[in-house]
Every structure is written in structure tokens, then in C-alpha cells.
């Protein structure tokens, strides 16, 4: 087991059934077990019946994974902390533009970090940046002196490198009508 020390961040990815209430079950489990979630993202996959979660915890990932696997709607869990992977976080950062000099600095920084300016007003700009957590943190630190008005991050999504895929064994579409997920939702 890749236990690591309790303060190390560990990453898990989970495939879950795309049904109402599943995110609630996961969140409830974390609260009940007193697991601290650093970040949890969830979204659809190529299969409309399956959603995928990326979970970053500062807790023993094996324990978290074992608990997650107990949920009936959780199809597959994998710990990927030590597997070569690509991790991305997206942030929108609203920075103050107090002078044209500041504007220039921001444009330059965006260039270096390959971030995009997605909105520009007379007093503020919104910057979109994707990358691993470190890249975003560096960007944030450099922007901070200019005056960050608002910041939002999506949390981390992770995919392992190479041709390994996290896929459920022989997942079949339900052969019968199951409307229990009718309020089409990403958990």
C-alpha cells in the first residue's frame, strides 16, 4: 500500500454511476469517516451512465478507496498518486487593472503561463489558467501584488499517462429501462 504520510496529498479517481444522489453519498461518507477532502471534482465521461470523480485527500488513500468501494454506486476506484499522470486544475482569476503598466504586466504574465484573458474591463480582467496545482499557485502568487479581486478554482482532474485506462470491467448499458436516474444529472 502506498501509505505515505498523512499530510501528503493523495489522489484517487473513481468511476461512479451517473445517478441522482451519488455525490451526496460520497460526501456523506467522507464526513462520517472524518476524511478531509482537499478537492473533489466530478463530471461526465464518454459513457452517459458513468461519471468520473477525481478526489484529492490528505488522508490514507487506501482507506478512503476501500470505503468508497463499499458504495454500491461506485463502480471502480483507483489510487493514482504514484502512477504517472496528468493533473489539471482550472482557475478564473479576476485581477485589478489599476494602470496601463499593470495591464502590460498581466498580459506578459499570461503569455509566460499560457493563460488566457477571457474578459477585460476598464478596472479588471479575468484570466483563465489551466495547469497543475503548482503552476496555478505560481501564477496566483505573481498576480497577488497587482490585486486579486476574486478567484475560483475547479479542483483537480487527473488522468493517468500512457494507454492504461480506468474502465469498469465489462460495463454494459442497462438492458432494461432504468429511470431512476431520470433527472439526468451529473451526480
Amino acid at each position, binding site marked *: 500500500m502506498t501509505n505515505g504520510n498523512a499530510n501528503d496529498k493523495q489522489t484517487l479517481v473513481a468511476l461512479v454511476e451517473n445517478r441522482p444522489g451519488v455525490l451526496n453519498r460520497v460526501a456523506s461518507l467522507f464526513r462520517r469517516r472524518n476524511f478531509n477532502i482537499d478537492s473533489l471534482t466530478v463530471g461526465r465521461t464518454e459513457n452517459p451512465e458513468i461519471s468520473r470523480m477525481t478526489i484529492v485527500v490528505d488522508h490514507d488513500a487506501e482507506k478512503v478507496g*476501500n470505503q468508497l468501494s463499499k458504495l454500491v454506486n*461506485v463502480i471502480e476506484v483507483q489510487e493514482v498518486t504514484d502512477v504517472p499522470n496528468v493533473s489539471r486544475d482550472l482557475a478564473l482569476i479576476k485581477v485589478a487593472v489599476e494602470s496601463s503598466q499593470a495591464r502590460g504586466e498581466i498580459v506578459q504574465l499570461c503569455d509566460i503561463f499560457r493563460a488566457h484573458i477571457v474578459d477585460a474591463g476598464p478596472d479588471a480582467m479575468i484570466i483563465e489558467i489551466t495547469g497543475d496545482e503548482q503552476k496555478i499557485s505560481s501564477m496566483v502568487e505573481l498576480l497577488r501584488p497587482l490585486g486579486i479581486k476574486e478567484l475560483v478554482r475547479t479542483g483537480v482532474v487527473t488522468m493517468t499517462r500512457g494507454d492504461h485506462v480506468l474502465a469498469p470491467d465489462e460495463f*454494459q448499458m442497462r438492458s432494461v429501462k432504468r*429511470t431512476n436516474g431520470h433527472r439526468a444529472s451529473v451526480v
Partner: protein
Amino acid sequence: MKLTGAEIVLECLIREGVEVMFGYPGGAILPFYDAMTKYPQIHHVLTRHEQGASHMADGYARATGKVGVAVATSGPGATNLVTGIATAMMDSSPIVCITGQVASPAIGSDAFQEVDVTGVTLPITKHSYLVYDVEDLAYIVREAFHIARTGRPGPVLIDIPKDVQNAVTEFEYPEGEIYLPGYKPPQKASAEGIQAALDLIQKAERPVILAGHGVLMSGATKEVIEFAERTQTPIALTLLGKGGVPESHPMSLGMMGMHGTGYANLAIQNADLLLAFGMRFDDRVTGNLKTYAPDAKKIHIDIDASEIHKNVRADVPIVGDLKTVLNQILPALSAVEHREWLAQIRDWMEDADERDIVHQHVTNKLLAAHVIRDMWAATQGNAIVVTDVGQHQMWEAQYYPHERPHTLITSGGLGTMGFGLPAAIGAAMGLKTNNVWCIAGDGGFQMTMSELATAVQERVPVKIAIVNNGYLGMVRQWQEFFYEERYNATPMITPDFVKLADAYGIPARRITQREDVIPAMEWADSVTDGPVLLEFVVEKHDIVYPMVPAGADLHNMIRRPVPSPDGL
């Protein structure tokens, strides 16, 4: 065939083999109750409180091994099930709870008697469903029973809005395999796991088996005994493990833990190998984890992967069904002797015997332990005993040895007072026997004694023994030890239990002398057409010894003083 949602549920229950369900009606579940009139094959037991229904379903399940069913209406009916659901969850008991819900268009509007019961019970169910469409009902009921009874069993809740119960659709029973992509109860262990276990087993000089509920749940009695005999390994039992192996077996050490036997705990603390068979290292059995079995390697076999390393790190973790895994291990297991180790344990046993309350001369006092030992004698150890929670429960565990699985039914994980009477009713109905004894304290009995009426209405021949010490005895014990005898909120008055029984038309007797215990039991045995009640008025200030204080080291037990002049 066009059926209503309510009828579909009943059709499915019949196919699941349900013969009896326990419940209480109300507005949101009325379509289901109305549909029952067309299905007389399933007997509905009207309880006096929904908590009674969930405990009865639980007692039924634990006694029979089948899935118990509890039914309640929405809102207050559903919330009243909660304690029983949590009890079943903690002790891995398979029950299915069916609750009515307000009509689906009204969900979320704070409608009359609306409560988000799937939300409320999320952390205390193995799984749950809120059914939005009648088309899903049949699958959901099938899935619910499958989930409740397989893997590590547990409670499943199905919440059905009133309009879904009334909706009509073509019913065709969904045959074929159940498809749950995320649900894969493990069965077999890997070859490497087995080999690693064998290596440790062959090397061990002071091994101890810790036999838990998993021994009973997987039906592994024979395998555990074979293992213990071939490797000469003593067996300590958890509370819920009682009955998993006969306590008369020469390898049995009796119960471990807070009120376990001193020699079981000493054996564990001095062991060099612990074989945890279907148990979960609850804090009541380990005491202080930092000093727990310091020299022992641990092999942990459990069907639930999340139990492994949860409290105690396993050197060899094996996830699988215990019986299956033991059958993988046994063929490769060669015979070993542990003479010195067993001799050492025998020494500890002799010391403990000296302090044993039933071996002491007692003047003129009726002690709960004596009552229980005499019950054991009178029933020849053959009763199905259902206990409540408290001192009497621990004395039961100490002084009523069990020889067969599922003959002790008790709330272990949650320690639920009020469990005893309703669970005993459920057990007696499931087993259709008049050999079920409920042992309850005066406190816990008063929590659910309204179910006496249920027992009378159903003519359940359950035998009730109230151990009346005029106190919330177990709490009083803690106050005596740890709160300088400030007995706040533990002395309690009780109704006249004999008169109370009389009010329900239940034959009853009060016993105050030891010589009357066995005759009273024999009398109770002759009552077979309904409940019977015995009230044992016992010594008020008795203590359950030995005791490991919560969080203390397992070997630091508070022992019964010996010898003591008045037998206490």
C-alpha cells in the same frame, strides 16, 4: 399483468420468500397497506412503534438468516425506524425497510409528514433508494434484497412516494442476473495471501484466534474448529462471535474485551500471532490500541476490505468470505503443538476461576449472574437468548455459554437499549419456537415495553426475564468507578412489572430468592401460547467484573476482589 406499484412490491416480496413483515401504517404508505389485503400469504405484524418494527425485522433476520422486512409511513414513521436501522448496520444484519414518501411532485416542499429519509439514513444504510418511477420498482426490490443479504449484510431502505405506489404498469418479474456494476462482494483470497498467512501460522508459538460475527455469518464453525484443533490455537470470541464455536470446546477462551475473561485478554496481549476471523477490532475488544497485542503479527480475514487496517494494521490482510478462505488455508495446514502456551493459559484460567462469581458462596442475595447461570441450567444451554443492553447483557455473555450459532442475539456495535423485547419477538416469530428468552434490564425494557401488546396480539410465545436492579446498572457501574459514586440519573423507579404484564393479559411472576429461579423458569416453560414474564429482583449494587476501563490497556483489568465476605 397490470399492477399498481404497491402490488408490484408485494409480488416481489413473495418471490424473495418473505413470509412476515413488521410495520405500522400511515397516510403515505396506505396504498401499500391496502394492497396487502390481496396478499394474505405475507403476514403483517402491527407493532406499537416503528422502532419495534425495525428491531423485530433485525431479530428475525439474526435468528433465521433470512432478510427481515420493516414497513413504515413517511415522516415520523420513517424516522422512528432509524435506531433499528443503525443497530442493523453496526451488526451487519440484513433488513429491508420500506417507507412511504409524500407524492413525488410534493417532494422538497415540506409537505405534511415529509422527511428526507434517504438523506437521514444515508450513513446508516448499506444502500438506499428513492423510487421515482413505478417501472423501476421491481428491479429495486430485487436489488435491495440482494444487497441486504450478500457480501457484508446490512440494512437497505426503499422510500416509495405515494403516487408511485398507486401508479399502474405492466408487471413482469425481472428474471436473470442482478446487474450492479459497482457491487462485487469478494469471495476467494489470492494465493499469495494464503501463502503469507500459512508462513506466519507455521512459525507462531503463541497464536490466538479472534472469532467474530463473520464466523456465524459465513457459517464457518466447522472450519474454525478444524483450524484450532489442528494448530492447537485457542479461540477468543467477540460478543457477536458467541455461538460461532462451542464454548465448551477445549480451545475456547470465552469472550474477549472490556468484560471478557481475564485469560482471553492475557492470551491476546501475550500472543505472537492474532488470527482475526471476521471481526473488526472494535474499541470494546482492543482497549488501548497503542498497547494492544504488542508482540503479535496479525492475520486479518474479513469480507469487508474497509475493515482491514481500519483500527489495527494487519501483517497479512485477506479480503474474502471467511468460510471460503479457511477452506483455501486448511488443506495446506499441518498439525502443530503449542504445549507451553496452552499450559500458560490454563494457569491464567485457574486464577480467574477463583474469582468467578458463580463459584462463590453468596448469602441471601439474588445476583444477576446467578439468575443467568440458572437460566443456562434450566434451558440446558439450548435457548435462543436475546438480550437488551447493560450489565445483564455482559453477565449473559459471561455466564451463559453458547454452543451453536445464532443462539445469542444482542446489539453489539450500537449497544441499543430497547432492542431486546422487539428483537426477541422477531426471532420467536421467525423460528416459530417457544424457546426464545429475552433478558432485559429494567431500564431498557421500559424503552420498548409497549411491544408487549404486539406479542400478545400475535400470541408470540416469547419468554421475558427482566433483571431488575432499580438502576441503569451499567451506567451506575461507571459512576461508581469513574465518577466518585455520584449516581446522577441512574436510580429509576419501575412500574410493578407483574401488574403491568397482568394488564396485557400476560402471565407473570416476581422472583426474589435464588431457589425460586429454576422453578420459575420451569413454570415459564409451560406457558406456550403467548408471552410470559419473569421479574428477577436482584442485588442493586452489583458490578460486572472483570472490566477494562474504556481506553485502558487490555491486560489492565479491574478484577473482582477475592475473597469477598458478602459475595460481592
